[in-house]
């Protein structure tokens, strides 16, 4: 061993262990590298909110298609239909606690994605959490996170000589618990971990948590201070936080306290693209609701907290002027059973809805609200409509880079089709302010429609359904001068909602259309 290498090796510190890592899959690697560089260039951030324990999707976004059937199979937890927050022009409703999420939905700033999961659902919290964090298939065993493996191939020297000019900030920040598998690579962890909210404020104040009284406690205080000072990103995070002296009010709960820090760091200029925060308690085997009033109880309280926290976060982002460059996403290791149990609760299930929110959200909903027939038995589960890796892929691709094709499974040949989640795809043209104005006429469509816009570039127009499936490529080729116009037929498609995915050069935009 050369002396220099040795010393460098021994010199790294991960007192707060560190970030994202990587994949052997080169296609994926290349893409995400661009994503992260772009994230730095554009200061875009994605906040992952992990709902620990398995959130009951059927009591969060409630299908109204056959309410009698729902009542029949979930007699212990179902609410009265008239208590729900019905969403106009759809067949689902929000839980009554989710008033703010509903208004975000109505503003087009929150998207509901129905029935997200993965094939061969595992019902263990631990195993299913690992699957969501590692991006593995249900039968693959990976001990690293999908982001962790990626960063490892792109940053093989990390943490030596990090932070540096190109990457001055943590590659990821997570709050709560220790370092999650998400950001764990094969050889190194990549996230800066704030073990709890207090440790963030201790960092700001150069203080440490209470220590035992006496000489042993004095030593502990000293060591903690030294550990704090050794955190390689500590100074950077502290500087970012100190630039922000006022934030909009947040409620005082674990999730809000975390989101408050995230907003502060983003507003303070930290150019970290990925944040993970957590909220616990969703494992509602019993007393999920209060029997006297099903709109109350444990689950209602948690959804209230989620609702209030996200709204406070959104308002703060607006106040800080960062709302247009932050997207958020909720996920949970699974949903819960269709059939409720006699302890006023629900047991481990499968697919569940996800929320994707932010000013740049595509809005609306994807997929169909689950169909309940009324004859389901205890072991029945909701059918998955979207693989969670489709959503990851879509968000990363559309939020950080318009041309990305991200593969998530450890199997490099496996690809996941994208679904529209971002309204204005990342704009890489030299004059990003130049907006594409896409005209679609007529809409709703009976048989034929005409799409037109200004362009003088390569153009591709895809028709996709609300599940993200590609139905037809309507046009592909170069646009001869401007304006570009194209007629197409919808005769062959059944009535319903469709999406036009229009790609012009590096720009991507979507237009919703309705077939009568």
């Amino acid at each position, binding site marked *: *061993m050369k002396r220099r290498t040795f010393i460098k*090796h021994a*010199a790294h510190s*991960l*007192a707060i262990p560190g970030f994202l890592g990587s994949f052997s899959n080169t296609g994926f690697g290349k893409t995400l590298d661009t994503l992260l560089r772009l994230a730095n260039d554009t200061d875009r951030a994605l906040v992952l909110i992990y709902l620990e324990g398995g959130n009951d999707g059927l009591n969060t976004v409630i299908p109204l298609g056959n309410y009698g059937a729902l009542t029949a199979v979930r007699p212990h937890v179902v609410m009265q239909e008239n208590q729900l927050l019905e969403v106009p022009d759809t067949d689902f409703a929000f839980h009554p606690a989710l008033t703010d999420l509903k208004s975000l939905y109505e503003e087009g700033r929150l998207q509901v994605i129905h029935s997200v999961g993965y094939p061969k659902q595992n019902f263990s919290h631990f195993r299913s959490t*690992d699957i969501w964090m590692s991006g593995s298939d249900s039968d693959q065993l990976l001990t690293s996170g999908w982001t962790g493996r990626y960063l490892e191939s792109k940053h093989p020297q990390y943490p030596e000589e990090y932070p540096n000019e190109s990457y001055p900030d943590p590659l990821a920040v997570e709050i709560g618990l220790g370092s999650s598998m998400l950001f764990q690579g094969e050889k190194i962890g990549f996230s800066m971990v704030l073990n709890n909210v207090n440790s963030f404020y201790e960092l700001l104040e150069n203080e440490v948590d209470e220590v035992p009284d006496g*000489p*042993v406690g004095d030593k502990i205080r000293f060591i903690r201070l030294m*550990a704090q000072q*050794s955190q390689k990103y500590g100074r950077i995070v502290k500087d970012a936080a100190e630039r922000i002296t006022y934030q909009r009010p947040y409620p005082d709960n674990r999730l809000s306290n975390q989101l408050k820090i995230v907003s502060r760091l983003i507003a303070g200029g930290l150019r970290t693209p990925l944040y993970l925060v957590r909220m616990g308690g969703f494992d509602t085997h019993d007393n999920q609701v209060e029997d006297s009033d099903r709109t109350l109880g444990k689950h209602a309280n948690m959804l209230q907290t989620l609702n209030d926290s996200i709204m406070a976060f959104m308002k703060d982002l607006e106040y800080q002027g960062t709302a247009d460059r932050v997207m958020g996403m909720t996920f949970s290791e699974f949903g819960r059973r269709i059939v409720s149990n006699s302890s006023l609760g629900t047991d481990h299930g499968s697919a569940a809805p996800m929320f994707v929110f932010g000013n740049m959200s595509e809005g609306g909903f994807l997929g169909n609200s689950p169909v309940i027939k009324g004859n389901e038995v205890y072991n029945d589960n909701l059918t998955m409509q979207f693989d969670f890796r489709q959503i990851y892929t879509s968000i990363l691709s559309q939020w950080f880079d318009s041309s990305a094709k991200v593969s998530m499974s450890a199997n490099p040949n496996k690809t996941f089709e994208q679904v529209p989640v971002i309204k204005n795809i990342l704009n890489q043209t030299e004059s990003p302010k130049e907006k594409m104005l896409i005209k679609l006429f007529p809409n709703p469509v009976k048989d034929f429609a005409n799409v037109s816009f200004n362009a003088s570039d390569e153009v591709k127009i895809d028709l996709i359904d609300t599940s993200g499936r590609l139905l037809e490529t309507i046009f592909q080729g170069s646009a001869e001068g401007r304006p570009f116009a194209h007629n197409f037929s919808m005769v062959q498609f059944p009535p319903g909602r469709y999406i036009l995915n229009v790609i012009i050069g590096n720009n991507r935009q979507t237009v919703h259309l309705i077939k009568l």
Partner: protein
Amino acid sequence: MQVIKPGQYRHLVTKYQKVAPVDLTKGLDRKTKQDQPANARLQEIEEGLEPYSGVFSERHLAHLIKRISFGVNPDELNAFRNRGIAAVLEHYFSNKFDYPEPINNYNIDSEKTDPEVREGESFVLAKFNNEFEGDRIISIKAWMIGRILNSQSSIQEKMILFWWSYLPIKMWDVFISKNCYRYFKMLEKHSLGNFKELIKDLTIDPAMLIFLSGAFNNKDTPDENFARELQELFCVGKGKDARYTEDDVRAVARVLTGWTIDWESIHNTGAPQSIFNPEMHHTGEKRFSAFYGNRIIQGREGMDGAQELDELLDMIFTNSETAKHISRKIYAFFVSTEISENAERNVITPLAQIIRQNNYDIVPALKVLFSSAHFYHAHIMGVMIKNPLDFTLGYWKNFEMKKAANFQEERDLYSGILWQTANIGMEIGDPPNVAGWPPYYQTPMYDKIWINSDTIAKRIFLSDSMIFWGYRLTNSQFITANILEFVKKLSKPEDPNVLIHETSVTVMGIELNESLVNLVKNILLSGQDQDYYWTGAWLTYMANPADLESKNIVLNRLNPAFQRLLQLAETQLM
């Protein structure tokens, strides 16, 4: 015959010493604030050497074992549980340890092949060869680490480190590997023996004669280096009652004139020898100050001059400061680096009494100390910051990390540990100076000196990497901690509370507070509220340990939980 002066080969050392010596005291405020002792609360301990009469719990047992050896593991706790202090001490004090001599395992690393010593053969009698001394010294150091790693439930290796910290040579300054080896063996021989006999052997030891240049002290050109340190650092100290004078230093130096090295023994095959050369001896009378009772040592002619040394040691060891001095050294190394006034009165003074009563046999005093109420006081248990060897080798013991399978690997693996521990401030065999490692004596910081923002980061990097991706010792050695086997040995690993508690007893100096326990438990439970999710995962794994999926589920929780546990400040304490 060519003489070798201390530090003469310093220009060669940088070629071998992969980590430049780390100066932990750089930039520290060395001034003691008299009105504000560093750790004033130690003064609250009223207890002294009276036997500890409280409950001897698992944590007390772990405390004792950590202080008298290097780390502790569940096997040892299980073996000595409910045995009582006396039985534990009896075992640790009587458990002598044999380890084969260091051998030539450096040929592969070296650009040349040692002409004197074949690969796999002992070099401890080989003649001096400056082209190989550096490689041989590294092999001795790796061997010293190997000894610690392989010793089981014995105080011996900890005692040798104590003596080396207290009465050091710097191996790189001496540079003659066989002298260094002999010094080690000399300390080993006296490790649980008689302090006075140790000092006598040390005074005329061929390594010490070079290190403090006693070999070059003669009647014409006196060298007072050793004479000063013999009093100031080794025997009398600098306590307020240690009032020896500069004239005493000169007189001691004169007594010791004539003692030198048989240079032929260095440059030929065979054990290094020291000799008394009457021609170099100062034969006049040596007068000592009132501190030594105005004692006069009459000069002697010829070989009789050698006997002046015995008279000198009788004089020094009659002085009451000497027993106090070694008592303070024992206390600082084994109990608390900082000595309060109460400890001086209630521990040091009576401990010195015991040492004197036993004519400087130290075992009785050590046993009394390790059985005392003072030693088990809440302010003492956990108050010591682990030195780099306690810290690093403690992990090796806790988590059954890889040991060398053969002599070649011994060098590869253990020299890796050597440089890693050097990098956090403690290169075995080479304290920064003749006073030893500063954390054991430097006011006002004491053992806090071990920890700064750089060393704490490296310490935590060790635990992070051994858990997740392997701790790199060399380009080919990535060492992983066997967390799973560790956890299996706990009494009830399926209960997260028991798991965390028993782990803290083993690796930490103090019980974790409730919020930290919950923090770690949360990680173990992946944020779930119910302990039974861990219990289920663990029992599922144990029911079928070959099943990779259930093993992964368990490891994916244990790893981050242990990462967090070992990052805690409490883990730095013992």
